[in-house]
């Protein structure tokens, strides 16, 4: 148990430092990469809690997909740091309020479980599969909620594509299907000519 605690504090420290660097790093690309590191260590902490599905899904979705797009955007844009820093002191009070509310909510949720008794959840049996348990719940008890969430995401995807879809009139594009259907007889006319005389 003490080993797990040591590992937990190691990951927690890395995560806190990474989180801090996300907001203090001068270079936006560095900040985004520190966010990746924070996600990664968060997933490692979830693994310590034996929540392997959540941990791996975090890496798969956030690290593998979301943050890649984030980095894409951050690298492509020419971000003016001075402009970004202008609003810092003006927005600080609001940020502090939001932060305090979030911290209070987290404390309210976990306080009674972790601050009163230092109880450890019993270790799960050997054949227990977190993924299977989650799947069972999602597709039986919470099937409708799950489907609704999926449909909302689908609508969001369609909306995002519809918003950015612009068809320029002067674009030239090829239709591979048409190209494949081409027959030489329609394009090339073979003319047979008599051979020329020797020199």
């Amino acid at each position, binding site marked *: 148990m*003490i*080993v797990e605690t040591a590992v937990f504090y190691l990951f927690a420290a890395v995560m806190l430092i990474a989180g801090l660097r996300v907001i203090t790093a001068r*270079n936006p*690309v*560095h900040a985004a*990469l520190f966010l*990746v590191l924070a996600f990664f260590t968060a997933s490692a902490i979830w693994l310590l809690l034996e929540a*392997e*599905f959540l941990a*791996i*899904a975090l*890496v*798969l979705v956030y*690290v*593998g*997909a979301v943050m*890649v*797009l984030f*980095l*894409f955007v951050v*690298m492509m844009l020419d971000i003016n740091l001075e402009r970004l820093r202008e609003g810092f002191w003006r927005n600080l009070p609001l940020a502090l309020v939001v932060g305090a509310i979030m911290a209070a909510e987290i404390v309210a949720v976990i306080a009674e479980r972790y601050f009163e008794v230092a109880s450890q959840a019993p270790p799960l049996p050997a054949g227990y*599969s*977190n*993924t*299977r348990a989650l799947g069972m719940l999602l597709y039986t008890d919470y099937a409708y909620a799950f489907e609704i969430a999926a449909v909302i995401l689908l609508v969001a995807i369609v909306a995002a594509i519809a918003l950015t879809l612009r068809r320029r009139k002067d674009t030239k594009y090829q239709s*591979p299907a048409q190209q494949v259907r081409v027959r030489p007889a329609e394009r090339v006319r073979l003319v047979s000519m008599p051979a020329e005389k020797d020199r």
Partner: protein
Amino acid sequence: MLEWIVTRPDAWFGPTWGPAVYAFVAALVFIVAIMIPLFVAVAYLTLWERKLIGWMQIRIGPNRVGPLGLLQPIADGVKLLFKELILPTNADKQLYLLAPVLAITPALAAWAVIPFAPQVVLANINAGLLYVMALTSTGVYAVIVAGWASNSKYAFLGAMRSAAQMVSYEIAMGFALVVVLMVSGSLNLSDIVNAQAHGRFAAMGLNFLSWNWLPLAPILVVYFVSGVAETNRSPFDVVEGESEIVAGHMVEYSGMAFAMFFLAEYMNMILISTLTAVMFFGGWQAPIDAPLLERVPAFAWLLAKVFVISSMFLWFRATFPRYRYDQVMRLGWKVFIPVTLVWLAVVGIWMRSPWSIWS
């Protein structure tokens, strides 16, 4: 002897830290036992690539260093080790040096859950397939970071191309894996192999007809071609299209840093081949249920399958011209994703029908 080894950590580090130290050292030993053969395999895959493509093009291939050119990879390795590491002007030094590490780490870490034979796997975790998917999806960071940190137009353009390509093909690959896990009923790679040993044909002793490749043939094609695209191999190597953008994201790298990208690419090739063998070709199982074939160690079957599949990568390279970039994207988004979606529904209905072959 074994008892002595097991009890030593407890005696030296006490009962609290002893088991942890033992587990740590044991894991290290197993990791090294997987990694060293892997590096040798990568080294000789490069030689095999040059030899095989040489023969296909009616050349001899490397034959100067050692007998039959067998020491060529070692000569290459020594050469790369002693080359100077050049840092471009205004490159982001830390990220520039971090990128090769980011390339090789996921390529190596994914091997933790690969079953080499029954019970021979470093980490027999239940979410093995998800783990592999998650780790291979982080490989794209190496490309992006390398391209950006190099502070070079060509490297950046190559990185953008490659990252977009890898992200696109990951979706088709993920859907292909969903179908495999649906018919296997498990995310554990060992269970996926074992699930392929049942069926009408396996009962007749013709194991190879019960493997997933036959009922899931379209998925196999999608998965394997996506794998070729995912590893940026020819004909999808638009990243390093020499005629357009020199050598892609690693154009500024030299010496060992370049070699790391190279190693990661070949390691990913072997990984994709192994995953194809595990998920579609019955992993370590013998093709026919015959007493003579049972004498062959299980690992040898996996090795043979991986060898054949990774040779396909080289065969593709020698055969096909490079895709144009928009066609690469078209193939990924407009062909592969619809194919996998349709086949997902087909297999789903098939599984619930009375003709289901998976029960």
